[in-house]
């Protein structure tokens, strides 16, 4: 019963890993050494494994110098930063998120890590609001500047409503929630229209949801019969216009790839 009504409107770590690997090779085609710094639980391990496999498949001569795993919600990254400073890799991959991301960025900035190596953040969009240093590779499942609100009215309405209510632009969880809620809404509406009733039966809704394609503030989502979604991500190199903490990146270059 549970499986029948469970739908995933978000992406998986595979899309994160493959997309990030392709972008890394696009901006750093001569990357030779890589170090992984991820949290020691399923999400961290999956992100690292997917990124590493994708990178090594596309460029087999890249050397993985070390794979560091930290406990979830560890507060002190000094030892890991020290090790990375000693190893001097070309690239660091990290899927740290939330408070861990903030702690890492602050501590690494203080130690001068970002002057020495480039870091690819697989969930770095939140870091853009917390002092992400220049020239790092940031991947977020969503970014409020893409699709450009000036060109895409759904995103414009969403961002404006969010800012007027909460004072800052929507982070990626807001977009995730929007994707999910809109998916459910459209599934029910379409099923009601198809069945010509006011409130459709659950099995009809499930059948519709399995083949739904809909536009959301950040994305265009195509649901597939195995209840997963086909959708895109955003990533870019961080180039801040000024040194303001809040990201006012107008010259952010975003590219999208379909990956499933």
């Amino acid at each position, binding site marked *: 019963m549970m499986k029948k009504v469970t739908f995933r409107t978000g992406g998986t770590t595979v899309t994160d890993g493959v997309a990030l690997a392709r972008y890394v090779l696009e901006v750093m085609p001569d990357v030779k050494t890589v170090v992984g710094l991820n949290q*020691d*639980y399923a*999400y961290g391990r999956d992100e690292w494994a997917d990124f590493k496999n994708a990178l090594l498949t596309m460029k087999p001569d890249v050397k993985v110098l070390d794979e560091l795993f930290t406990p979830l919600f560890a507060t002190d990254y000094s030892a890991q930063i020290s090790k990375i400073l000693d190893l001097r890799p070309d690239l660091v991959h990290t899927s740290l998120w939330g408070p861990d991301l903030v702690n890492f960025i602050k501590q690494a900035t203080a130690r001068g890590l970002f002057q020495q190596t480039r870091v690819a953040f697989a969930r770095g969009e939140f870091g853009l609001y917390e002092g992400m240093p220049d020239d790092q590779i940031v991947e977020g499942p969503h970014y409020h500047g893409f699709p450009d609100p000036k060109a895409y009215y759904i995103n414009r309405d969403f961002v404006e409503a969010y800012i007027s209510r909460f004072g800052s632009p929507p982070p990626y969880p807001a977009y995730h929630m929007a994707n999910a809620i809109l998916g459910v809404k459209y599934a029910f509406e379409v099923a009601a229209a198809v069945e010509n009733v006011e409130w459709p039966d659950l099995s009809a809704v499930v059948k519709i949801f399995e083949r739904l394609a809909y536009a959301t503030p950040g994305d265009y989502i195509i649901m597939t019969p195995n209840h997963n979604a086909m959708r895109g991500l955003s990533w870019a190199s961080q180039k801040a216009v000024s040194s303001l903490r809040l990201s006012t990146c107008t010259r952010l270059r975003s590219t999208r790839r379909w990956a499933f």
Partner: protein
Amino acid sequence: MRGWLSVVAFIGVAAVVFAAGGDYLKFVAAYVMMWSLAVWGAQLLLRYGLVNFGIGGAYAVGGYAAGLLYRHFGIAEVTLHILTAVVAAGLWGLLSGVVSARVRGVQYALLNLALSMVLYSILLKFYWATGGSDGLYVPLPRFFDASLGDLGLYLLALFFATAWMTLGLVYSQSAAARLADGVRINELRVSALGAHINRQIAAASALASVSAGLGGLGVAYVTSHVSPHYAHWSTSGELVVAALLSIFLPRRWGFVAGAAAYQAVRLFSLQFVTPELFVGVALLATLGLWRYYRR
């Protein structure tokens, strides 16, 4: 209430809940009954005056017995699961009991905490065998080729809870219980009277771990999932708090009532923005009530 009467009354209450309650209430009742076994284990050790923050280790061992048996061998037979859980949790309890019986108080709590966190880390790290932090799927158990449906699972929970109430009744009349009280009150005197305290503690630890293991197994059945979080110290903390709640009540059925009270408070608190605040206040209120009635 006299011992056997309380058991019968409990069965009656459980039957009423099953007949009249909706799906959610039945789920919560089954969860509480299974979880109360682990609370019984924590309470047993509290009787010795030992606060065990590592009982989650045994709790996890029980749950993972079912999960691993199903994942690697495809076994969903409930008797095999129970047997494995009992043996594995018993061994865990015996070993950790022998190791931690040398110390008391804070050191005992912390040693067990560290042991259970080592198990947590192992379960987390060897993710190719144990499923890592994603955890393992635990199927609805089968009893000789017949799948236990909702009713079967509820009856299993009821069976466990009443069996443990009976065990509690038998235990409280036994010499081991007297010894436990003695160890809590004055250890030196009891050992002067000829008891081997460390052995007693190791044995009690094994029994408590078997209890917690079966509790973990039961909760894994009810929720169809087991994860390393079972071994985390916060899970042990919840068990200890529920056991402390039950200390305020008669020992025979206190563990079920304490478990039910804690879970009820926790589930009720989830509707608020700050569930922790609500649970904290509820715990303090309980303490206040108990002090008022015992003054």
